[in-house]
Structure formats: C-alpha cells, structure tokens
C-alpha cells in the first residue's frame, strides 16, 4: 500500500537513529574505559555508517539502514598516572579512549533532531491520510 510504504521509510529512519543513539550512549559510557576484555587497552569510539535501503539497484530507495558500526582507529589521549592500575609499567602512561564528549554530545543532538524530523514527516503522512479519509465524510 502506497501510504504505508512512506510510513515504512520514515520508520526505518527512526530505527536507524535509535541505533545511532545507542552507539553514542555506549561511547559516552565508555569515555574513561581503559580495559577491554580484561586486557589493558583503551576503548575505541564507535561510529554508525548509514546507507539507503534499496530493494532494486536503481530504485530511489526505500528508507535508511545502518550499514555498519565501525571503530574509530584514531589515537586516544595519554595521561601520566603511574598509580592507575592500567598504567603502562614502564612509562606510567595510561591510554584513555579517543572519545571526545563534546563530539558525542553534538552527535547526540544531531541524532535527536534527525529523529524529530522523521517524526514530523510521519505526522504529516498521517495527517494527509486522515485528510483523504475525511474527503469521504459528508
């Protein structure tokens, strides 16, 4: 049905933005994580990669999907703190994650606004459908 297909498009975008929100929450939660799987290693921030959801190669797209969640390989910050349990025994440096809380916050705002935009689209679609049903009401 044509009406519900446009609702599915916006719905897929909502799902994708929710997943992006989850990844950002994970990044902020792990902003000071210095141990991964029991090993002394800084957490690497994760990013989502979006791609259009396409049924056919040349179709205009049927929504949005998350292609992958990738790790940011850039170097994190190093802090001299020999007392830390995860400090390098030779240099006394602690490797902290490459998570920048400011970046994550702006990403979060962006995800939240994108979600709102898609909700607005959905409301418009719903109103259009409602108006067309009202056409029949005498």
């Amino acid at each position, binding site marked *: 049905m044509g009406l519900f297909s446009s609702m599915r498009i916006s*719905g897929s975008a909502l799902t994708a933005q929710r997943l992006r929100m989850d990844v950002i929450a994970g990044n902020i939660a792990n902003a000071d994580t210095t141990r991964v799987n029991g090993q002394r290693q800084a957490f690497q921030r994760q990013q989502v990669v979006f791609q259009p959801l396409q049924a056919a190669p040349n179709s205009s797209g049927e929504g949005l999907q998350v292609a992958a969640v990738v790790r940011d390989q850039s170097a994190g910050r190093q802090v001299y703190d020999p007392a830390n349990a995860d400090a390098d025994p030779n240099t006394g440096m602690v490797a902290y994650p490459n998570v920048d809380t400011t970046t994550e916050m702006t990403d979060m705002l962006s995800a939240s606004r994108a979600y709102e935009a898609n909700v607005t689209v959905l409301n418009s679609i719903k109103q259009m459908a*409602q108006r067309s049903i009202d056409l*029949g*009401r005498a």
Partner: protein
Amino acid sequence: MPISSIGGGLSPLTTGLPSASPAKAAGADFGSALKDAVGALDQLGKKADASSLALAKGEPIDVHEVMLNTEQASLGFSMALQVRNKLVDAYQEVMRMSV
C-alpha cells in the same frame, strides 16, 4: 465567407469512454474483493496487537515500531469505515428512490 458547421470537428463523446463490460470481466467479483480487503485490515490489526503485546512483555521492540503499527491499523480501519459508510449511503439512496 463560407460557414462551416460547428459540429464537424467534434467527435462523439462516447468514443473515449470504456465500453461497458460485465462486472466479472476482471475475474474478481465484489464479494472476494471485499473479503481480501477485510483480510488485509485484519492483518494490520493483528500486527498492531502483536507489537503492543511484545512491548508490554518487555521484548526488544522499538516504541516507534509499535506506534507505527497501531497508527497503520487505525488509519486502515477509518478508511474501511468510510468505505462502509459510502456503501450504506448508496444502498439508502437506492431505497429512497421513488418508482
């Protein structure tokens, strides 16, 4: 100055109209079409019910998914209701017809 008849350039109105064909030409009669539509509506309702139940049971389902499904079911139902109203109107119109 010769005066030509104005009807010359006009073609009969009926040529553009589809010829009246019997209702069964498409292969589907009204009853089965109605049955299909009601079945599709029922599917929407069942989907909405299932997702609300999943949310209530705490299964990992997004809230917007549930809202979308219930909204689709609600829109589908209002549409069906309007179609039904139109059908009843048509019936009453025929019944009011004076013979």
